[in-house]
């Protein structure tokens, strides 16, 4: 049996088993089973990837046919899995970080009762299965299936706390907003099928050049619509901050490390189509850049630490999208990889803080926590440093690469770079702001401070591992002028072999170094500003609803996206629905149906009294008369 099948179906099997029997097994067994299945999946995934690496670079593609989904004469779709460097990287991320988060969740979810506990692990395992289906897909149908399964499991996990209305609403919001993107994705799939007659990547992507430019643009834009939904690109980003209603490990796993990167993955997977359409790529790049900047500005004023990281995630996803949009796929994916580590770390550390403070998430009530929870503090500082792009951290290298490509890449534009740069500055500010507000300065809520405590080892261990990973993973993609050892670029090279050579040479070493110095300086300055603003007793946190300026109000209300949607879509839809209900459904449809029924009943009442009177012999007389009539007609017409 192919190890990929184990990777894929073991989490599914444990999910089903846990959902059915986990509550009876008890917490330990359910959690152990779930963690073990993901660990085994990781081991098998690593084995598969090593096996892949052993192949010559040009032929690093393994196709696994599981079974035929659809086998018509002219159209065949199989449940096919494709292992190539891209999906290999993704399955390692999904199972590896997934395992750490599972481990963390063992401690984090400890207070739930056994049934909920098992349900949680079942859903998380199911998510892992869905995500693996998505990344391992070898055709558009399977990837769409994984796409939808991911949406379902995300919905289940966001709304995991069933008692909370806000959680249920957030789940619905995530699902509905994602549907908008999915619609585009589905349309794109239909167009692809129409154009190629097949949904297999191998039949579509290498021959993408056969598409007319208009069609390529249409497919690219529709695909990106799906990607924007999943990867929370503006204006479809609104679901992601609300998705923080789910348990923190879920936020870390799904809404930071894995699921939201699906859009980036999709664009990278379908780069052959995007490359055909400068317009589509431009839309991708600009959307990414704008999202990166705007989300970063929003993150600067939020006081809920998970919400800050949520907007930060949106922003960082914007960087990845910007990366793939300017044609720097490797850079975008490298940022995906580093971000998976440090954002998972940040979320888990935020969860650790939240755990310590019994659910408190408002940074205005924290402060000085580093004494109470040094490990969390240290790891979170590492994560924040990566996020902010402190030199020599992984985030520094990956973001630097993207920004460089925005300035000098194949589809570069100064505006893109500027937005990216401003966003990076904001990122440095809000990262510092959060770290300093939470861990430094004086405790602002002494009651909470007194009860704060470090998290258990089962939560601490993943933090440490992720922190180490966050730092180390940067080594895989050091800038080209430092070293010729480029494992990440080399690894992905076969996937992007069809692209023109990345013109890194066009950027002089002086420019690169200059940019690096610029970033470093920016980070230092903004970090210092944040330190000054947020470590004092009266930190610069305005109280709720107390806007200091119009700009602050705009940012505090997240550019009024939700309100705009509420007005444009929800209110309008409600009004339209109400109209449909009142006039079309109740008036026209019901009126017709009831009218027909009433007419039938009236006729029936009449006939029942006169004709259907229960006298059998009278019925017989009707029969005989009818027979006479028919006979007479037959005699008249048959002659």
């Amino acid at each position, binding site marked *: 049996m192919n190890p990929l099948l184990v990777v894929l179906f073991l989490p599914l099997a444990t999910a089903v088993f846990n959902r059915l029997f986990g509550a009876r097994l008890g917490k330990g067994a359910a959690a152990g089973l779930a963690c073990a299945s993901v660990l085994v999946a990781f081991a098998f995934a690593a084995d598969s990837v090593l096996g892949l690496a052993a192949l010559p670079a040009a032929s690093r593609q393994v196709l696994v046919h599981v079974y035929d989904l659809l086998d018509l004469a002219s159209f065949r779709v199989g449940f096919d899995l494709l292992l190539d460097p891209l999906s290999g990287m993704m399955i390692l991320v999904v199972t590896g970080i997934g395992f750490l988060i599972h481990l963390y969740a063992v401690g984090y979810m400890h207070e739930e009762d056994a049934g909920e506990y098992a349900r949680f692990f079942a859903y998380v395992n199911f998510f892992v299965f869905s995500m693996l289906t998505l990344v391992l897909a070898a055709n558009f149908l399977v990837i769409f299936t994984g796409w939808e399964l991911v949406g379902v499991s995300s919905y289940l996990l966001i709304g995991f706390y069933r008692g909370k209305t806000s959680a249920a609403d957030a789940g619905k919001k995530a699902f509905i907003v994602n549907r908008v993107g999915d619609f585009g994705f589905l349309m794109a799939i239909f167009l692809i099928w129409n154009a190629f007659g097949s949904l297999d990547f191998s039949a579509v992507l290498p021959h993408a050049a056969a598409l007319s430019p208009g069609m390529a643009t249409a497919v690219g834009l529709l695909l990106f619509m799906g990607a924007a939904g999943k990867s929370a690109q503006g204006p479809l980003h609104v679901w992601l901050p609300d998705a923080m209603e789910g348990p923190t490990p879920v936020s870390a796993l799904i809404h930071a490390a894995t699921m939201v990167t699906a859009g980036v993955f999709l664009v990278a997977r379908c780069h052959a189509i995007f490359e055909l359409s400068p317009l589509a790529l431009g839309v991708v790049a600009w959307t990414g850049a704008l999202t990166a900047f705007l989300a970063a500005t929003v993150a600067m004023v939020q006081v809920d630490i998970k919400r800050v990281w949520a907007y930060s995630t949106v922003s960082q996803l914007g960087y990845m999208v910007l990366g793939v949009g300017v044609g720097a796929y490797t850079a975008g994916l490298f940022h995906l990889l580093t971000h998976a580590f440090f954002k998972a770390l940040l979320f888990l550390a935020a969860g650790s803080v939240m755990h310590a403070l019994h659910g408190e998430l408002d940074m205005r009530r924290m402060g000085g926590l580093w004494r109470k929870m040094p490990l969390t503090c240290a790891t979170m500082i590492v994560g924040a440093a990566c996020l902010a792009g402190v030199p020599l951290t992984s985030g520094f290298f990956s973001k630097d690469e993207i920004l460089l490509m925005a300035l000098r890449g194949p589809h570069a534009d100064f505006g893109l770079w500027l937005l990216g740069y401003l966003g990076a500055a904001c990122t440095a500010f809000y990262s510092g702001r959060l770290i300093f507000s939470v861990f430094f300065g004086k405790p602002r809520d002494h009651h909470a401070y007194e009860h704060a405590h470090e998290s258990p080892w089962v939560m601490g261990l993943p933090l440490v591992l992720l922190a180490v990973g966050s730092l180390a993973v940067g080594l895989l993609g050091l800038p080209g002028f430092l070293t010729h050892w480029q494992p990440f670029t080399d690894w992905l090279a076969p996937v992007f072999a069809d692209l023109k050579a990345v013109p890194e040479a066009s950027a002089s070493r002086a420019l690169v170094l200059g940019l690096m110095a610029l970033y470093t300086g920016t980070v230092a300055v903004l970090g210092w500003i944040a330190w000054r603003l947020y470590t004092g007793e009266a930190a610069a946190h305005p109280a709720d609803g107390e806007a200091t300026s119009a700009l602050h109000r705009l940012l505090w209300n997240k550019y009024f996206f939700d309100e705009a949607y509420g007005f444009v879509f929800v209110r309008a839809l409600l009004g339209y629905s109400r109209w449909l209900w009142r006039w079309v459904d109740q008036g026209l449809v019901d009126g017709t149906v009831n009218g027909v029924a009433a007419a039938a009943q009236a006729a029936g009442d009449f006939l*029942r009294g006169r004709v*259907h*009177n*229960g*006298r*059998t*012999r009278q019925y*017989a*007389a009707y029969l*005989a008369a009818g027979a006479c009539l028919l006979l007479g007609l037959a005699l008249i017409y048959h002659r």
Partner: protein
Amino acid sequence: MFGVGFFLALAFALFAVGAFGVLTRRDPLVMFMCIEMMFNSGNLALVALSRYLGLASGHALVFFVVAVAAAEVAVGLGIIIAIFRTEKDVNVDHLSELKG
């Protein structure tokens, strides 16, 4: 003198008599017999026509009619007896519960 037309006419006459019985009698059992009589008039016509046209399939058809009639009688009588047990009366003019 006894050609196929004679037998057809006889069959039609029996059919009419049966129809008349169904229309006028109130005893469900007699109505039932009259219905059977109409069946039989059909059978007679089939036999006569088989003889006239030289076809054995008419006989097979009669066989089927007889079998179906047997099934019909079994169920019909069961129903009549069931009705009688609850109503103590089988005058069809008094039975109109199912008129709706």
